[in-house]
């Protein structure tokens, strides 16, 4: 039982290492040779623009949920006036990047793995290699860069909408003036909060893009194999985002404590 667990854990760590190497290889290629602009534009549309409606709906309701929950907590301390600032701070530092990451795993990660996996099992990727085309540059790099940029931009959009959702809810439910709600934000949202949220969104975009591309790129076993890889990519990305969120939060908190913040 223990041996099986150890073997399983070892395989997961090796797989994670392979994903990191793969993502790094693609990013290095981007740094040295760039990304074909037409392919990047296509992927940005697929990855970012098509995810905007989902982000708008989710962002609005996340803002509203955060306002309800935080107002209930703050009321016990007579500090319900600070709901706008606290809700936005929590959203930008943690809930927003994780939520956007999850949306992209569902909307883009699964599609990416399925497309690349199908290309692999139908020999399209090998055919590109035989034609002298680098499949990493043509297929992986645009998708990875699009995932990173989209994650960051969608976080920004989602955050703005969540402020709208939170202030609307606070106004309708608690009678809080929307202007008062918004005016509390600068008191709680520091530059460090913005940097934390931004860094997390970039990290999660890199993670989910690398996982989705890696699992698809190395798919085997026909249609059933591609299906398994899509499931594996989704699970690995979701778990990866949660684990990465913990480590990034932990490192940043230690760093801030170290500089006496």
């Amino acid at each position, binding site marked *: 039982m223990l041996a099986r667990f150890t073997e399983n854990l070892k395989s997961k760590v090796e797989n994670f290492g392979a994903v990191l190497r793969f993502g790094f290889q693609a990013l290095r290629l981007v740094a040295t040779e760039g990304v074909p602009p037409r392919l990047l534009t296509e992927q940005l549309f697929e990855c970012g623009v098509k995810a905007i409606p989902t982000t708008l709906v989710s962002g609005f309701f996340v803002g509203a949920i955060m306002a309800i929950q935080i107002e209930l907590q703050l009321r016990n301390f007579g500090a319900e006036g600070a709901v706008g600032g606290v809700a936005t701070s929590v959203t930008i530092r943690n809930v927003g990047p994780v939520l956007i990451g999850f949306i992209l795993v569902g909307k883009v990660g699964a599609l990416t793995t399925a497309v690349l996996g199908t*290309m692999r099992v*139908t*020999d*399209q990727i*090998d*055919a*590109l*290699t*035989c*034609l*002298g*085309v680098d499949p990493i540059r043509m297929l992986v790099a645009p998708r990875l860069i699009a995932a990173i940029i989209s994650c960051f931009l969608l976080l920004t959009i989602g955050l703005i909408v969540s402020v709208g959702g939170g202030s609307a809810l606070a106004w309708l439910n608690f009678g809080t003036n929307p202007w008062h709600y918004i005016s509390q934000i600068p008191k709680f949202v520091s530059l460090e909060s913005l940097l934390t949220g931004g860094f997390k969104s970039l990290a999660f975009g890199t993670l989910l893009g690398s996982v989705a591309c890696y699992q698809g790129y190395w798919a085997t076993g026909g249609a059933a194999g591609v299906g398994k890889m899509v499931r594996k990519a989704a699970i690995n990305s979701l778990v990866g985002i949660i684990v990465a969120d913990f480590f990034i939060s932990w490192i940043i908190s230690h760093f801030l404590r170290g500089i006496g913040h």
Partner: protein
Amino acid sequence: MIEFVNVTKRFEAQAVLEKMSLTIEKGEIVFLIGRSGVGKSVSLKCLVGLLKLDAGEIRFDGRSTAELDEKEWMGLRRRCSLIFQNPALIDSMTIYDNLALGIRAMGLAASRSNERGLIEREIAQVGLDLSLLKRYPLELSHSTQKRVSVARALVVGSEALLFDEPTTGLDPINTARINQLIEGLGRAGRTIWVVSHDMHCALAVADRILLLEGAHIAADLTPKTIRSSNHPLIRQFLEEADARPLH
């Protein structure tokens, strides 16, 4: 032109090719036959560098592929094109763009009109209409896609063409078309290596027929000498071909 010297390729513990040696001369049409899963396609993928050898050596025009850097591999793949069992056309691109991929990656055309000229010449060579160039692969039949994949190999000026199961899944009419195409390309001076288990096709087209069995070349025959072979698997292939004559 193509030499395999004691080539060994393993997948985990299983040796698919074990000290396999063969030689294919320039301008020959050679069929490699054998049962499904014995490693016929693996040998083609080893030649173009899609799979790495565990031991042995492959030489192309006397030069060992082990010495090639990435740029030289591109040169080899230009001269020696693999046509996959699946047509392997890129679904999201038009037929024109599929054919232009290799030309652009290898910088073979001086201008767009030059590129179009190359593409139109080869699409005509495989007997297809130019109106197909604007269409997408999934709008075409499987056999038409296969012919497009041959044109994609020809357009980069390959001297050697490697066919992986070219007639699998095709009806007799389209099988005959592909066979004629292979024979025509061979007679025009190209080196042809076909991996297949279609003995009809081999008897009709090949200069030599090799049998891959037990991870190495078990027989090296011609269409004239093959009927005198006592190899049980060759006999089985011939009996199967005789039992299902082509109409």
